[in-house]
C-alpha cells in the first residue's frame, strides 16, 4: 500500500519528538478523525534551526510529518510557508489517494506553527491561500 520511501519515513521518522520551550508550535487534526499532528519550531533570525513533530495517526500521517519537517529544516519561515502538501507528497514519491489528506495536515501544522511564532512575536499572521491539492 505504501511505497518504500513512505515506509522508511514511517519506520525511521526524522525529527520526531518535542522541543521544550519551542518558539512556535502548531497542532492540527483531531483524535476523532484519527490524525493529530503537532509541530515544534526553533527559530533563529527567521530561519528554522530545529523542528520536531509528534503525530497520532496512520503511516502516511507519520511519514508526512517526518518528510515535512525535513523539508523545512534550515529554511526561512517564508520558504517554509510555501511548502505545499503536494510537495510533501511528491517528496514521499506519492501517497495513496485516500491518504493525501495526511500531507495536507502536515502543511497545516507548519502554517499553524509559523503563525504561532509570528503572533508571539507581534507579527501579523499570514493568510492561508487555501489551495491544497487533494
Amino acid at each position, binding site marked *: 500500500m505504501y511505497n518504500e520511501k513512505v515506509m522508511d519515513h514511517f519506520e525511521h521518522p526524522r525529527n520526531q*519528538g518535542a522541543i521544550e*520551550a519551542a518558539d512556535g508550535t502548531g497542532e492540527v487534526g483531531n483524535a476523532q478523525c*484519527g490524525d*493529530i499532528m503537532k509541530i515544534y519550531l*526553533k527559530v533563529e533570525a527567521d530561519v528554522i534551526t*530545529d523542528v520536531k513533530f509528534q503525530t*497520532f*495517526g496512520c*503511516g502516511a500521517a*507519520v511519514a508526512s510529518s517526518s518528510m515535512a519537517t525535513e523539508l523545512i529544516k534550515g529554511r526561512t519561515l517564508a520558504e517554509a510557508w510555501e511548502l505545499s502538501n503536494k510537495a510533501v507528497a511528491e517528496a514521499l514519491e506519492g501517497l495513496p489517494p485516500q491518504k493525501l489528506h495526511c500531507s495536507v495536515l502536515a502543511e497545516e501544522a507548519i502554517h499553524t506553527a509559523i503563525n504561532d511564532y509570528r503572533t508571539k512575536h507581534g507579527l501579523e499572521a499570514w493568510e492561508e491561500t487555501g489551495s491544497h491539492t487533494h
Partner: protein
Amino acid sequence: MNTDKRLVYMDHAATTATRPEVAEAMLPYMTGHFGNPSSLYDLAKASREALEEARERVAAAIGAEPKQVYFTSGGTESDNWALKGVAFAKKEKGSHIITSVVEHHAISHTCEWLEKQGFSVTYLPVDRFGMVNPADVEAAITPETILITVMMANNEVGTIQPVAEIGAIAKKHGVLFHTDAVQAVGHIPVDVGELNIDLLSLSGHKFHGPKGTGALYIGPGVRLDPLMHGGAQERGRRAGTENVPGIVGLGLAVSLAVADMAENAERLTALRDRLTAGLLAIPHTYLNGHPDKRLPNNVNVVFEFIEGESILLLLNRYGIAASTGSACSSRSLDPSHVLMACGLPHEVVHGSLRLTLGEETTEADVDYVIAAVKEVVQRLRDMSPLTPPELRSQSIGGDKICITRR
C-alpha cells in the same frame, strides 16, 4: 526493531489458508471430473455425486438436511440472498426488517439498500459488550415484520449473540429468522433446529476451506426470491454452473473443522485468555467484546493514544498479521461501526487491534505477539502528542524513539 523473520498469522477472522488436503481434494474436480453436474452423461456423475456428498457434509455440520443446503459464492452472497430474497418474496406481506447495529457490512449495507427500495429496517443497539438484548428484538416486532437477522458471532469483537433466545422469539411471532454464522460455523457448535433458525449463512474460507464458496441454509417452508436468476441449478433456487471443486473443498473443510472443533476451541480459549491477559497488562488498554461469551479465537483490545494502522504496519515488521477497526486502515475511511456501537469514543476506536488465532497458533506465538505489541505500543505512544508524560519511554538511543529535550 526486531528483525526476527518469524511469521505469526493472527488474522484468521479475515481469512484462513485452505488446508492442503482440501486443496488436494479439489484438484480432481478441476481437471478430470470436470463435467457439468446437471448433464446426463457419465462424466457428470462424479461431479454430481461429489456435489451431493458436500451437501451432506455441510448439512451435518449445522444439523440440517442436505436438501436444505444451497451453495453460494461466499458469506456475502448468502447474506445478500437471504435478505433480498425474503424481502422481495414477502413484500406483499410486510416490509419491516429487524437487525442489529453490529452486523457485518454484507448485512448492514444490504439493509440500507433495501431501505432505498422502500423497506424499513430497525437497527437494534447493543450493550458495551456488543450484545443484542433479545427483549429488544421482541419489542421491535410489528405486524409488518418479515425478517429478523442477527449474526451468530461478531467478526470484530467475537461476541456470541443470544441466537437461541432470538430464534425462540422469532418462532413465537411467526417471523423468519436469519443468522449470519460466517464466524461461527466450524468454530462453535451450530444447530439450526435447536436454535430455531430459518436461514443461515456460512463461508468456506473462514474455516480453512476455499475462498469464493459458501452456503445458505433454507429451512422448510421458507419462500425467498433467487438472487441469482438463470439456470435450474440448486433445485431452481440458485442459478449458475456449480463450482464443483469449490463445493467439494467447502464440504471437506467443514467436516474437518467440526471434527476438531471442541478440542480446538478448548486449546484456543486458553491461548486467547493468555494473549488477552498479556495485552491488558499494558496500561490504558481495554478489552472489546464480551469477556467470555466470545469466539474462542478472538482477542480485540484498544490502546489509548495511538492509531491502529500504525500498529499494524509495525507489527508487520515483526511478521505479525493482524487487523484494526481504525478508519485509517479501512477503505471506506470509517472507523469500526461495531466498536462505535459498543460505546467506544471515536478516538479510542482508532487504537483498536484484533488478533484472531487459529489451529496452528502456539503458546510461543502468543508470547511473541505480546512482547511485540508491547514494543510497538510504546514506540507509537512515544510518538503521539496525546500520550501523557508518565507513559512515555525514557530510554534514549538504539532503535527506540527518544524524546528530544533541549
